[in-house]
């Protein structure tokens, strides 16, 4: 069990690094070529993270990825408001955050990442 978490802890930085490189390349292409493919939007992303450590980590990972910036954080219920530059499909942007969240929770939780809820639109309070 603990071995699995250690393996995930080692995999997280490399997976995140690959994500950052890919996102940087996308943004660089947008900056260097005339015109822009960007479809900006502020998107609400409900989280499965619960502790402050988990929420802080995912918020910082979102900001560190070029193309997305965390604009606001709320703890109750844990939710991020994310500015996305390529948010023509909001579900796709949420999916990207959730993919990182999966990897993060696999490290921080003893029983692995919990299953994903729906796209979160039905959970408004």
């Amino acid at each position: 069990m603990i071995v699995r978490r250690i393996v995930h802890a080692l995999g997280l930085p490399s997976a995140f690094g690959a994500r950052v490189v890919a996102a940087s390349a996308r943004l660089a292409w947008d900056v260097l070529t005339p015109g822009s493919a960007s479809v900006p939007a502020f998107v609400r992303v409900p989280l499965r993270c619960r502790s402050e450590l988990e929420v802080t980590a995912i918020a910082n990972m979102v900001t560190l990825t070029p193309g997305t910036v965390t604009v606001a954080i709320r703890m109750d219920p844990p939710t991020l408001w994310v500015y996305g530059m390529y948010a023509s499909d909001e579900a796709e942007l949420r999916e990207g955050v959730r993919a990182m969240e999966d990897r993060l929770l696999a490290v921080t939780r003893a029983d692995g990442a919990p299953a994903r809820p729906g796209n979160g639109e039905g959970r408004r309070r």
Partner: protein
Amino acid sequence: MNTVVEVLSTACVVAGALVFSVGALGLLRLRDFYARLNGIAVSAGLGTALPLLGLLLRFPSVENALKIGLALVVQLATAAVGGTALARAGYLAGTPAASETRRDALAEASGEEGDGAG
């Protein structure tokens, strides 16, 4: 052998400087404050990590690996925490977004943010 590592180190630094200047160009070219923050993420993340790697390759030792590793962690923390804090501060200060930005999801949140990003 030694020269191969030196060439790699120089390549890392030059590539880092290129990435950095792309991010800075984004600071000029991108259309609103929130988009420019993404340009900063490029400069502060990859654009600084690559030169740091080049520095380590040029002066490899355990001591330097620790110092440069710590510098990298602090640099990434600066980029992440600073970026989030700046985005939040800019949003609270009412910095306008480009007109085509869809903001339905955030309109609901304005005025009721929880604890901050600092």
